[in-house]
């Protein structure tokens, strides 16, 4: 009993720690383009309670339904009032609470192993960094862990409730992101390998009925969310159709094409001088130790635990190989392979220490080294999500919006205050491509903002925001009436210039810095 309480207390402490490292300065980093499109998509649910699944973009709706109670609990009244931190709080909560699933897996990982896993999930820089992103990945990983945990409990107890809970988790995974098929593929491979290895040793229970019920539950849950609680019945068909564009994107686009080693290199070693070294090699190393120990059926390990370890080892290898093989890569996708590694690393740490001889204080020394490296992992997590949150030397930073975007918004809104139309002032945004997000979200308080990817016929707007590619054409057409007031950085190497009608600019300048004595030579 005491051990159970100690475990619960330690897990609660780790959950609190995970929350503490994820929450600070949640709104400091500007919205990534992907976060902003989700915030824009969230508007439909917030204002009209409506969700329409889009087979081409945005993934599933669980992210929006997770944000809904958070925004309401924070007392937000209008969509425009919901800020970056409000949205991210939803993923932070999910990214923290997922640690609790480890309590259901304490006999699969061992109590100490489960606590080591919880510690690594709490402090992994990738988990911390992407928990603070309003994107689907943290939810996908949480539901995946839910599936593992409930599935494990079902294999241990054979109770129908756990099968249904596992089915519900799988349904939530489906309703979260289309890449779930990759996770399911890796799961099938892992199950098949473990099945064949176990079959000779142990009789198979009659599980088919439970499995069917779990599948029905998964289907019902997925359809419920994807249809926006049955308001758009075409969604399931659209969901299946979505694999065509996503499949094309996975192979045909060069935009996010990266070498096969992208994820492993990101986890093992990144050093972009003169920045710090980033590495989660501790997790990878411990996962290797865990995989080897489970596969060899370490004598200190219970057979069920070894079986789970083997399953997790195959799953991790398979999911890492699948994600690595697909040319289309975004760094947050590393979370699912990393989850597998963490679940191996817990038992791996214990196996590593147990494998050492008791003499010469080798075990305490090993524990101290692992503890020190884990603390360093936490330091990396803190720095990656705070000081280096938008720094391109941080390997988790990807096409990140720069703080300058807030400068554009501040300028446009200040100009609007000097314009007779106020927030209805016309703003034309001319971008060389469609990647001008998160600008529309940041300009959400302006009522008349238009977006073009080619030069429009007329430029009759007091404010024109444009890519530098249009500089020459804009100079020819606006030089007599407008002033190019400066470049702003949207993303690294992506700039926008802001042209302002000259009388409006003069009023703005006058208002901002009323005439004062000129202080020269001081």
């Amino acid at each position: 009993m005491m051990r159970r309480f100690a475990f619960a207390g330690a897990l609660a402490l780790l959950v609190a720690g995970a929350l503490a490292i994820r929450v600070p300065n949640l709104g400091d980093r500007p919205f990534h383009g992907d976060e902003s499109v989700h915030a824009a998509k969230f508007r439909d649910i917030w204002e009209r309670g409506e969700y329409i699944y889009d087979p081409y973009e945005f993934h599933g709706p669980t992210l929006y339904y997770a944000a809904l109670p958070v925004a309401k609990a924070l007392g937000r009244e209008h969509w425009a009032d919901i800020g970056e931190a409000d949205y991210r709080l939803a993923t932070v909560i999910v990214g923290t609470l997922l640690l609790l699933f480890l309590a259901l897996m304490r006999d699969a990982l061992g109590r100490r192993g489960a606590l080591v896993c919880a510690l690594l999930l709490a402090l992994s820089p990738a988990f911390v960094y992407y928990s603070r992103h309003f994107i689907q990945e943290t939810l996908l990983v949480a539901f995946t862990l839910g599936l593992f945990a409930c599935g494990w409990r079902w294999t241990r107890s054979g109770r129908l409730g756990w099968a249904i809970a596992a089915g519900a988790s799988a349904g939530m995974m489906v309703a979260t992101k289309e890449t779930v098929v990759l996770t399911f593929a890796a799961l099938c491979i892992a199950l098949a390998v473990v099945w064949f290895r176990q079959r000779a040793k142990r009789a198979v229970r009659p599980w088919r009925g439970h499995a069917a019920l779990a599948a029905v539950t998964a289907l019902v849950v997925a359809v419920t969310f994807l249809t926006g609680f049955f308001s758009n019945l075409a969604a399931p068909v659209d969901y299946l159709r979505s694999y065509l564009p996503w499949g094309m994107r996975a192979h045909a686009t060069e935009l996010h094409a990266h070498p096969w080693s992208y994820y492993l290199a990101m986890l093992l070693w990144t050093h972009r001088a003169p920045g710090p070294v980033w590495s989660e090699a501790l997790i990878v190393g411990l996962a290797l130790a865990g995989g080897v120990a489970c596969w060899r059926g370490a004598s200190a390990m219970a057979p069920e635990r070894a079986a789970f370890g083997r399953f997790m080892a195959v799953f991790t290898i398979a999911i890492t190989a699948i994600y690595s093989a697909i040319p289309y890569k975004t760094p947050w996708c590393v979370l699912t392979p990393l989850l597998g590694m963490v679940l191996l690393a817990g038992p791996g740490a214990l196996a590593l220490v147990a494998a050492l001889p008791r003499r010469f204080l080798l075990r305490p020394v090993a524990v101290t080294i692992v503890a020190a490296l884990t603390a360093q992992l936490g330091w990396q997590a803190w720095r990656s999500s705070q000081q280096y949150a938008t720094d391109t030397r941080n390997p988790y930073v990807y096409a990140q919006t720069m703080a300058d975007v807030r400068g554009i918004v501040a300028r446009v809104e200040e100009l609007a205050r000097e314009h007779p139309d106020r927030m209805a002032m016309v703003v034309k945004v001319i971008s060389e491509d469609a990647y001008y997000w998160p600008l529309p979200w940041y300009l959400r308080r302006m009522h008349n903002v238009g977006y073009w990817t080619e030069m429009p016929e007329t430029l009759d707007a007091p404010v024109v925001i444009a890519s530098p590619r249009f500089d020459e054409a804009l100079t020819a057409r606006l030089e007599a009436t407008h002033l190019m007031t400066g470049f702003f950085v949207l993303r690294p190497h992506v700039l926008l210039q802001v042209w302002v009608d000259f009388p409006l600019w003069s009023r703005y300048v006058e208002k901002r810095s009323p005439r004062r004595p000129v202080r020269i030579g001081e």
Partner: protein
Amino acid sequence: MSRSTFRASRWLGAGLAWLLVAPATVALIPEPAAAQGETVPLPITLPRPVFPGTPRDIPAGTSVERTDGRPRAIPQVPRGTVNLALNRKVTSSRAPFAFSLDLVTDGNKEARETTAVELRPGLQWVQIDLGAVATIHYVCVWHYHLEPVVVRDVIVQLSNDPTFLDGVTTIFNNDQDNSAGLGVGRDREYFETSEGRLIPARGVKARYVRLYSRGSTFKDPLNRYTEVEVFGQQSAP
């Protein structure tokens, strides 16, 4: 002498007389307008460039203009246009931080640490006394072209008043937020290159040239002036 021979010799004499008199007559006729406005290429010599082209990365927060990287076209100026600033007296808003103000008009515009006078941070100016009122066609300024920096709040003014309180003509101003208090500038910022910044003055008559600046995108906040050339013609006394 026959009548016809006499007639021929008379025409010949008249022709010879015209050949002798005509050049003198032409010399006495006032110069036509076209010849009076005869132009020649601006007599500017450029220093050696120390970096190729202009940088691809535009500094955020600037309004720096885009260039195509091709050499600047040399404008035409009236014959007789010279650099009036060469070795002229230079004053400044505050004593230099390093080096001498003489460097501004010494004719050495090569990009080296020692060819530019350094003024303290903040808004500063240098002023050139041309010695007499002149008709100014162009002003060319090299702040610091050892690196492609962008100098902030560049304002160039002409006047006959050494205090620049009266009769001031602003020929360049990229202080768009009027932080210098001299008016909202409509010109854009630019990268410093070996070509300098050539500013048309459109024949303004003035004796003094004043150039303002407020630091740059360089690693330190100092104001630097390598050379200023003022192309024009001394007005008749």
